[in-house]
């Protein structure tokens, strides 16, 4: 795939935050990613769309090495994190992930969900972790539920806590893996709202989503992933208005 002309390699301007180089992924005989290249710069909001089974989630999970590429390399701030010597635990503190199924720890309160990694991974003192967590929970509108357990919250509330949990680590990039897909329709808005604000504040984000409105309005760049390959890539509004490939046109017709 050709890389889009952009500021990414304008020498000295700024290093790409994330760079994927010819990433392939096999699950057994299943070839899920077939050579994907991708760069993400600071403040990029890369939205990834495409038919299910196209490898969107796998691609996102490769960025934080939750899936290890079978072939290809992943760079974070120009460090090759596919290298076995890479300290993934350290790298992952800079990469926040929010999952479709929230994956909050059900045996801990909302607050403990957020403070756990602050204390155990970042080694923050308890009171500092507490303050940072409360601050972050307030920002997603969940400060009043700090003492609640995940099972007592709605899906939208749980997802906002999950976002707060990831943000409290002060990551350099946030990955969102179909975070609204499991939600009842009336709860989608509250989660998207948090994500929009985050984008406006300048967070670098990768968003795998089926919310086409969000992709068009918030994305700074869109990736159409089809059958494990980047089918088309560009500015979202332009891609919606004027899809170049038949596959993208067909896809957009189906989902819009």
């Amino acid at each position, binding site marked *: 795939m050709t890389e889009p002309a952009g500021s990414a390699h304008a020498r000295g301007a700024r290093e790409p935050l994330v760079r994927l180089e010819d990433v392939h992924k096999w699950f057994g005989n299943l070839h899920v990613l077939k050579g994907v290249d991708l760069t993400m710069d600071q403040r990029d909001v890369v939205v990834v769309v495409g038919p299910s089974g196209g490898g969107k989630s796998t691609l996102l999970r490769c960025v*934080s090495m*939750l899936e290890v590429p079978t072939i290809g390399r992943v760079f974070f701030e120009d460090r090759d994190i596919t290298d076995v010597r890479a300290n993934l*635990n*350290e790298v*992952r*503190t800079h*990469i*926040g*992930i929010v*999952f479709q*199924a*929230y*994956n*909050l*720890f*059900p*045996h801990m309160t909302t607050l403990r969900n957020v403070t*756990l*990694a602050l204390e*155990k*991974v*970042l080694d923050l003192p308890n009171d500092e972790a507490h303050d940072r967590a409360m601050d972050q929970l307030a920002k997603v509108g969940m400060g009043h539920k700090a003492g609640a*357990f*995940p*099972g007592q*919250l709605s899906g939208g509330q*749980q997802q906002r806590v*999950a976002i707060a*949990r*990831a943000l409290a*680590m002060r990551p350099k990039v946030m990955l969102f893996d179909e975070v609204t897909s*499991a939600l009842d329709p009336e709860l989608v808005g509250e989660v998207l709202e948090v994500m929009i604000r985050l984008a406006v504040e300048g967070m670098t984000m990768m968003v795998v989503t089926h919310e086409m409105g969000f992709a068009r309005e918030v994305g700074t760049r869109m990736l159409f992933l089809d059958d494990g390959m980047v089918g088309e890539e560009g500015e979202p509004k332009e891609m919606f208005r004027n899809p170049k490939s038949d596959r993208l046109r067909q896809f957009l017709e189906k989902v819009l």
Partner: protein
Amino acid sequence: MAVREAPSIEPEVAPDVRGPTAPLPATIFALGIAALVVIALGVVVSQLNYALSDRVLTPNCRQEQISPEDNGAIGVCNIVEALEDPLTTGALYLGIGLGVLALVLGASTYRRMDSKRRRDQAITGAVLGSQAVLLAIAILWFRSATPGLFAKHFLNFADLQGYGSAFVRGARNTLILAFAGEMGGIVIGLVLGILVLSQRRAVRAPARTYINFFRGTPLIWQLVTGYFLLLFGFGIRMSAFVVAIIVFALNTGAYAAEVFRAGIQSIERGQIEAARSLGMSYFQAMRYAIVPQAVRRVIPPLMNEFVILIKDTALVVVLGLTANEYDIFTTAREGQSATFNATFFTVAAIAYLIVTLPLIRLVNAAEKRLRSGLVGIAGAGG
């Protein structure tokens, strides 16, 4: 569709296919209960009647090889005679009659009962009736053979006088063996359970070998071999009681490992991914996210293992325990070999039940609570 569109047809009433309603559901239910009650009362009352009054050794009993020299011979004879008593006989046959009646009536009419409650009454009556019939037949069969010989060996409590404190001590030792073994087993099991889940074969293989070995060989062999391995193999002279605790811990560890493995595997994959994506190491993720959740889920199966271990401690009978180390079963065996009276084992069974029945209830309650608790956790995930 065509029928629906024709407006001229009058609204139809569903044809009544139920047929006439059957009578007497409560009577069938009462018959079933009565059948069981009659049998129970007949047997118990005549047993009490004989037990509480002075009797002599009847010729009938002598015929069943109960001799006057036997300690408690009259008590045993009373059991036999009460079984032959007309009151018992009458109750048994009356019970059979009532039970058959409930069974026939219930089975033939329950389909025609006009409410769920009445149908349940008819079915329950038939079931209770058939249980009464089977019970009565079993008792008739038992008394037609040589109940005296059985009673002489297993229901002769005369020799047990003075053994009360021994059984209490036995119960205490049984619980010490089982509890200490279980605690050791849980620690071993947690470690092994995590090891067998390793990605690395070199880590997995020894743990798997250990588990398969202890699950695959008889506990009685492990006890005997463990004792002599320590003594001859390593030159360690230890009390058989302590050796038993060690072997129980090693054995339970293998089973607990499987319980922990299954418990850890039952935690959704997303949990470890969430923990790892926050920068936690594998062991941090295990320690803070996975194991605390798994522990909740493994409590009922581990309690179940504990109940099994309580019974398995009886195997220490093959080791040379000193008298104050005797467990329930060894106490019974010693009593039996001193008196040639197997009633000690009957009492041992009762002693085990006193310990295990409350625990079994506790396991069931814990399982029930966990099931309802899991609904909450599942709701949080999806």
